[in-house]
Every structure is written in structure tokens, then in C-alpha cells.
């Protein structure tokens, strides 16, 4: 079955402050959606709310993945159902090696009695690390500890490749990446594009979209999607910035929930 991801009227608050004011979005398998927008408009909140970060309270709306109610699920259940969020600021965890972590994650999805063999796992991990031009020693390094910004982002993509999710959310995966790393990360994403996998790419720069061509581009302001279009919308935003959108919609302050 091809993936169907549906967000309807999603509202979310942090510490009582409403950030998402009703998001509607449908993503089908094979589609790449990009969400663009200036800082402080609620883009990352959308990513966190979808993944189930405990700080973000969903106050209204629904999210389903292939008909299943995502909002009813715990964070780990969402992941096992096929949701993946490449985080803007991945945690560093001392004492847990990258390999141990990834094997636990893969086995959590496969379930008890169906664990991946160590040899098969190592072979897969090595293969994907090579594709991402990662130093093999990162396999046995503590998770993200002492990784540079770019290395952390590559490590997020590595996890995505090994976990083979149905719906991938990339939250500012391009921030802090030099052009080579950006290319490698984009190639990793492109290699994962398939009919049964949807992508939601959050970014405030268009440059990532030079490498990953989106099918749909959405502009977020004030906690809502205020404009949607095709790849040409991203090009126009790159060329002209966001002011014309604000002007068109009569928006003065595009941010949301800022003190």
C-alpha cells in the first residue's frame, strides 16, 4: 500500500502558547513536500509535534499515517509505525555507541525474535556509511558525542537510510552544512525517494531544494500554511524573499508565539 499521511487542522501549543494554528497537509508516497518560511513561524514546531515531543501539546486536529491515528501513539510507536524525524539538534549520548543505538532501533522495529544478525547489520551500516562518506570509526563512537554539525546531520541521514521509514521529516537538515556535505546529504535523501515513502522537508533556505526537487512547496507564517505551489514557488522565494508573500496576504509580522 502506498503511504498516505494526512494532517488535518493541527493545533499545538508549547507552555500554553499556541504555535500551530491549524495545519492541513496531505503527503502521499513518492511525494516530496517542502515547508519554507522565515524563522519563528512554527516550522520546527510542526516537526516536533508530529513526532510527539513531550513539550508540544496538541490541542486540536488529527494526524494519520495509512489510516492509523498518529496522535494516539507514543513517540516510539510513531517511529515504529514508520515516522522518522531528522532532528535539527540531535542529542549527544555518552556511552551509547552509534552501532549499538542503531541496532537497538532496527531491532525495535523488527520485534522480538526477529532481530537482525550482527553480521548483516554491520554490513548494512558500513555500506550506508560509505555512501554518506562517513569515517568508519563513527560506527563505534558514542552517539553524536563530539560530532561536528555536519557529522551529526549525516548521522541523521544514516539513521533514516537504515530505518527505512514511510514518512520522513527533515528539520533544517541543511543548516550548518557546507556545500559538499549538503550534496552528500541530498544524494542520501534522493536515493531513498520511492513510491511508498513521503518526505516533508523543512528549511528556510532554498539551496537544499536545488539538490532535492520538491513536488510541492508550502510557505508557513504565523503558525499556518499560507501559500502552496510547485517548485517554482521556491525559486521565486529564493529570488525575491518573503516580503511579497506578506504583502499579498497582508501580513505584517510573520512570526508566531514570540515573546
Amino acid at each position, binding site marked *: 500500500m502506498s503511504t498516505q499521511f494526512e494532517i488535518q487542522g493541527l493545533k499545538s501549543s508549547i507552555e500554553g502558547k499556541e504555535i500551530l494554528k491549524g495545519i492541513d497537509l496531505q503527503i502521499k508516497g513518492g511525494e516530496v513536500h517542502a515547508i519554507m518560511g522565515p524563522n519563528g513561524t512554527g516550522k520546527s514546531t510542526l516537526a516536533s509535534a508530529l513526532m510527539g515531543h513531550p513539550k508540544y501539546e496538541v490541542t486540536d486536529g488529527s494526524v494519520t499515517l495509512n489510516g492509523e491515528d498518529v496522535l494516539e501513539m507514543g513517540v516510539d510507536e510513531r517511529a515504529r509505525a514508520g515516522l522518522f524525524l531528522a*532532528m535539527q539538534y540531535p542529542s549527544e549520548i555518552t556511552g551509547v555507541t552509534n552501532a549499538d543505538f542503531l541496532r537497538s532501533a532496527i531491532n525495535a522495529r523488527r520485534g522480538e525474535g526477529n532481530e537482525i544478525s550482527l553480521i548483516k547489520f554491520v554490513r548494512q551500516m558500513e555500506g550506508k556509511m560509505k555512501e554518506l562518506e562517513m569515517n568508519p570509526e563513527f560506527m563505534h563512537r558514542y552517539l553524536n558525542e563530539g560530532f561536528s554539525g555536519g557529522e551529526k546531520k549525516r548521522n541523521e541521514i544514516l*539513521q533514516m537510510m537504515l530505518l527505512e521509514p514511510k514518512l520522513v521529516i527533515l528539520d533544517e537538515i541543511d543548516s550548518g552544512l557546507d556545500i559538499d556535505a549538503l550534496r552528500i546529504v541530498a544524494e542520501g535523501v534522493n536515493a531513498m525517494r520511492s513510491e511508498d515513502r513521503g518526505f516533508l522537508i523543512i528549511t528556510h533556505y532554498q539551496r537544499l531544494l536545488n539538490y532535492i526537487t520538491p513536488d510541492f512547496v508550502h510557505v508557513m507564517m504565523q503558525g499556518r500554511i499560507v501559500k502552496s505551489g510547485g517548485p517554482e514557488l521556491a525559486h521565486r522565494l529564493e529570488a525575491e524573499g518573503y516580503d511579497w508573500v506578506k504583502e499579498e496576504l497582508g501580513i505584517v509580522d510573520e512570526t508566531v508565539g514570540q515573546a
Partner: protein
Amino acid sequence: MSTPTTSFGREAAAAISRSKNEPAWLVASREEAGQLATEINLPKPEKLPLTRWTLDQYGTNRPGQNVSSISDLPAVITALLPEQSGGALIVQHNSSVVFTQLSEELKAQGVILTSLEDAARNHEELFRKYFMTDYAKEEHKLAAVHAALWNGGVFLYVPRNVVIDAPIQALLFADDAEATFMPHVLVVAETNSRFSFVEQVASNLGETSATLLHNSAVEVFAKAGSFVQYAAVHQLDASAIDISYRRAVLDNDARIEWIIGDLHNGNSITDTKSVLKGNGSTSDSKIISIGTGSQRMSLTTQAVHFGRSTESDMITRAVMKEEATAIINGITKIEKGATKANGQQTEKVLMLSPKARGDANPILLIDEDDVKAGHAASVGQVNADQVYYLMSRGISRKEAERLIIHGFLDPVVSEIPLEGLREQLHRILERKLG
């Protein structure tokens, strides 16, 4: 069999010494310590009153059965031996050393590995030169009792320039709660020698109303340019008390690495101290502990800098569960004249229960200007962002927390120089962390 010694002094100490046919000077030395034990006070660990501790049951002499091959050791002991290769090994069972193994090759190089009791008789000069010179019987009552009653024990002597690849193992084991169990480990590393020593202290006491008092001491003398790695894993029954004073004295450019798992299940006082006497000497201490039940622990690391350009690093990591208490002290002392010294310390406590207590007390005592010193201490719970991150990859909350807690201790566990012991340590952690 007599009842465990509860009153104790000069006479008792002398009687014990004579029963072992010890030389007159050693009888006198024990006698003197026995006298001292009646006169001086218990140590006063920071924020940890010892009032309800049973520290006056010294047990009686219960020697184990001597054996001539590993296979003749009791099964409870062989089960604890991580690697049963032909490597250097010494085993104490209750009040005496029952087995020693040292390859002919190492013997030919002049390496000595014997019980300390044997060393007092057969290597008198070395024994008298070093024994209780850094851990002095005058320090407090427990030290005096130890000096009077120590038994079995380990003497390891590694001559100049000798490098030993395989770790030397000591297993100190008790299964009789009424035994006197007070091993003393004395290690002499001559100039430019290099080796690892792995000590395991364990017990299997079963149901008992007696309190086993493991009143032990370690003294390491690291001569110029030597490198000693000292790993220890302690896992005694909850009814036992673990008293472990560890000392290292370092000459010029010597280095010691302490890798310690203070994983005892009952009350304990441990104090791991490096004295950086020689210029350019370095010390690295890594200690982990897990508090469970209602156990009380005082865990101290110390570095005392005398030499110039000396460096010390001390890390203690403790996981506290249930109603356990740990007072963790780190003391970096830099003496006048120890220019360019660098002393760093970190104490980290992970609290898994609201009723547990973990205090981290970093103390810097600096009497010299031209030095570097630093400390970091933290007491906290499992980091919620880390749990979220792991869960976002499909890992359950329980497994995420397990990974984080084990990971918290891994920087020490992964340094244990003996694979078999490392695996054993993992099993202890699984059990204690439950």
C-alpha cells in the same frame, strides 16, 4: 572455633601474629597497631555518620584450603575467574591465600607474585620498605585495625624495565561471614616497568547474622617512568561492609590509571588516592558505582600534587537507585612548588529515585599559583531530550533509559583491561540496575 573478635587490642593482635609463626618484628608491628586501634578514632567521612555501622566485628582466622591447581579451587571461586588462561593469578579465600600462579618466564625476569604473608617472611626487606608506608596505621582506627589484622594479601613486585602484557589477576573472595577478611595488596613497580593489575573482590555469604568486614588496603609504589594500570571490581553481599583505602605514590614520570567499579551491595567507604611526588608523574582515576537498596557509601578520590608538571584527572560516575546514599568527594590538592601542575576532576551522579541521595563534593586545595585546576560536578536525572531522541527511532522508553544509564557508566566499563572481567561487570550492572 571462637566467636568473632569484637574486643581487640595489643594482646589479640600479638596472638594472631604468633599463631601464624610470623617473625618477631611483625608480631611487634601488629601488636603496636592493635594497641593503636584501641586509642584512635574511626575516620569521619564527609556527611556520612558511621554510628550505625558494625565496624567492630573482626572475625576469626578462617583460612581457605590451599590448592595446587586452578581446577581444585571451589566452584564458587572458579566461576568468578574471568579468564582461566595460564596468566598470573593469585586467589585469597576467606583469611588466607590459597592459590598462586606465575609463569616461569615472569619468574625468570624477577617478577614476584605471592601472598603478602609470604612476602613478610621471604621478602622481608621489600616488605618492610613499603608496607603501610603510604597508608599509615595512624590515619584512623580502621587503618590501625587493618595493620594489626591484615591477612592473606598480595605482594606483586615487577623489576626494572619489565613489561608484562597480560593483566595480573587477583581474586579476593569470602564465603564465611565470620572470617577475618582483610587483604592488603602491595604493588611495587620498579623503574620503567609496565603492567596491568586486575583485582576482584567478591563474596557469597548466604544468610548470615554476622557482618563481614572487608577492611582492605592497596598500596602501589610506582617508580620513575613506570606505568601501572590498576583495575578493581568489588561486589560483596549486602550484609558485608567494604572498606577500601587505595594509595599510589608516583615517582618522576610514573603513571597510574585507576579503573574502579565500586559495586558493592552494602555499606562502603572507599578512598582512592594518588600522590604525585615525582615531576611529570600523572594519574588518571575512573570510578563507577551503583547505589541500591538502603546502602550508604562514601566514595572519595584524591590527587595530591608535589611534583612539577604533574597531572591528575579524576572521574566518578554513580547511579543511585531506591533509597541509597552516596557521598562523593573529589579532592585535588596542589602543594606549593608543584608548578605547572594540572588537576581536573568530575563527579556525576544519575538519580533514578526521589528517595536516593547523591552528593558530589568537589574540593580544590591549591597552594601554588602557576597551576591549572578544574572541577565539574552534576547531579541529575535521566535526560528527557535523550530519551525522546532514542524513542524517536522506535526504541521503547524502558530500553532508552537502559541504554542511557548503561552508557553513563560505559566510559569506565570499557576501560577494564580484561575482556572476561568486562563481561562480568556488564552482568553485575544488569543485576544492580535491574
